[in-house]
């Protein structure tokens, strides 16, 4: 009951936030100089041609009117038509979203694994040089953003030891049997592991670049709460039962130490998704972020609006999922 009320309240704030995002992006991009319509037409187009096209995209109306028309469309699943690509925005966005989702989730998995291993190792070896080394590595990984990690990885694994692909999502001349855009998932389901390997080879560096700062944050926070938990009485009691350090850390301390880290991952995962915009650009990965930058450069107003709204939806959805996971994992909340 309490949980339901919390969820409903959260949905209401989410709606307000999305509305705010829509208003801001709508107003900001309508100040964009440069006439996208003029770019679509041959130089000898008449003023009448321009007016007709403006009317087609609705740019002849006032901004509030345009917003209402657009908002009404969005509520009915119509995000308008891209000016530069001349296709429905929704289809374009949905076509690219899976690529970005696969990249983000892969990065999240890498961050959790790396950060988790760092935290567990640091706890196991607390007070030693190993822990001090992990602290320094965490400090560096945390202070340097994904964009720079991407460039460093390009030099390291793309040029010095060229073991991974540095551009694109998949090798272009491969024949793809896929029916959805979730290439990685589908390649596994179809047991086409050759394609899985190719996709992973392309995904590895952008995902790692996105993962490193988050891995460091997870590593540091989780290690800190693990170390605090290790002093608690129930952990000590478990030791007297005959259990070793590994069991004590993994089964007694970890489940209780993980909750604060989990909340943090929620916010940080939205930052990570935000980072895909530039990292996809850096690795020419054909995702939503890369398309967004093209849309801005081409002044493709409907496409920009659509992409920003999808990102905002994604962010708020992530936060909602994290809150619910938190409630589900915490027995004290579950039985409240």
């Amino acid at each position, binding site marked *: 009951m309490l949980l339901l009320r919390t969820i409903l309240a959260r949905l209401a704030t989410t709606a307000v936030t999305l509305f705010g995002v829509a208003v801001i992006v709508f107003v900001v991009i309508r100040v964009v*100089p440069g006439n996208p319509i003029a770019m679509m037409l041959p130089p000898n187009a008449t003023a009448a041609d321009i007016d007709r096209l403006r009317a087609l995209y609705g740019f002849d109306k006032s901004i509030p009117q345009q917003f209402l028309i657009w908002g009404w469309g969005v509520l009915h699943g119509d995000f308008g038509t891209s000016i530069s690509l001349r296709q429905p925005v929704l289809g374009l966005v949905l076509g690219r979203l899976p690529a970005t989702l696969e990249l983000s989730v892969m990065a999240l998995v890498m961050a959790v694994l790396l950060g988790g291993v760092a935290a567990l190792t640091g706890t196991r070896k607390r007070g030693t040089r190993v822990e001090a080394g992990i602290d320094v590595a965490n400090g560096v990984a945390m*202070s*340097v953003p994904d964009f*720079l990690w991407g460039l460093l990885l*390009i030099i390291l694994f793309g040029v010095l030891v060229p073991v991974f692909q540095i551009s694109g999502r998949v090798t272009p001349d491969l024949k793809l049997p896929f029916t959805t855009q979730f290439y990685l998932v589908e390649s596994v389901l179809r047991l086409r592991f050759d394609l899985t390997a190719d996709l992973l080879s392309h995904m590895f560096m952008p995902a790692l670049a996105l993962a490193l700062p988050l891995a460091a944050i997870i590593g540091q926070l989780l290690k800190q709460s693990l170390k605090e938990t290790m002093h608690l009485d129930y952990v000590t009691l478990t030791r007297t039962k005959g259990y070793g350090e590994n069991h004590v850390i993994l089964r007694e301390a970890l489940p209780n130490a993980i909750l604060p880290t989990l909340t943090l991952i929620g916010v940080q995962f939205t930052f990570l*998704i935000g980072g895909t*915009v530039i990292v996809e650009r850096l690795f020419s990965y054909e995702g939503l972020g890369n398309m967004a930058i093209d849309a*801005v450069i081409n002044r493709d107003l409907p496409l920009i609006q659509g992409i920003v709204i999808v990102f905002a939806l994604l962010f*708020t959805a992530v936060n909602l999922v994290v809150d619910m996971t938190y409630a589900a994992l915490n027995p004290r909340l579950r039985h409240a």
Partner: protein
Amino acid sequence: MPRSIPGCVMLDGRAAIRRRLGLRLWLSGGWLALVLLAALLAPWISPQDPLAQDLMSGRLPPFWVPQTEPGFWLGTDSLGRDVLSRIIWGARVALIVAFVAGTLTATIGSALGLIAGYFRGWADRLISRLVDIWMAFPPVLFAILLIAVLGPGLMSIIIAIVVIDWTRFARVIRAEAMNQGAMDYVASAQVAGMPRGRIMLAEILPNVLPTIVALLSLEMGISVIVEAILSFVNLSISTDQPTWGGMIAEGRISVHQAWWVLVFPLIALFLTVLSFSQFGEGLKDRFDPVLR
């Protein structure tokens, strides 16, 4: 024979931490001073004209490679421009953006955070709602969008950074101001009849200042990165002014032919960003009464 319980040797915590912190502060501060000096003295210390093109001496490797031309220490790019000179001149743009954008972001964000955290009420509701909306934007996309609207240029970059990043300060300072506002010394100032605005500036601000300073240093590093990212997507300053981001964008394209065009500005950017954040952390720990 006495046996000790197996386990690890404890370091003497505080002394070791303090030593490590001191080193961190000195290293990062040293690098930042070096960059500042390079930026100030650029016209006198850069060995070449950063804009001089010479297609005959394009993509010269750095000095340690035999059969390279002397005078181009870190090599040249595809247009024959000296990489070292461009890095030195690029430090100017990087530091101007860092200081101006960082300070403006800190001032505006902290002011909003203080107001929201101390006055609460409708101001807090409004500012918090704005922060929520901002958090739902991918920041890089937002910045690119703003530059597209404002047009390229140093001013636009600074404005874009302030607009996308004020929330970082607002969020943290709001929480800190709320904590401070609940403390006894604030209550006693209120009882003494001090005006609320005075309390905020004279009582609360000094107590959140260490946090602001640490965040400011971090923000300066982030500003340098944002400038580089915008240069990278070709939306920064005019192309003939050397910037680290612009050099990296060029270097990324020709990385297989001339790695040094990418690597050296990247190292400069990496160390600068790392130093800004470590310097901030070091300062914060200096202010931390537990470790002092």
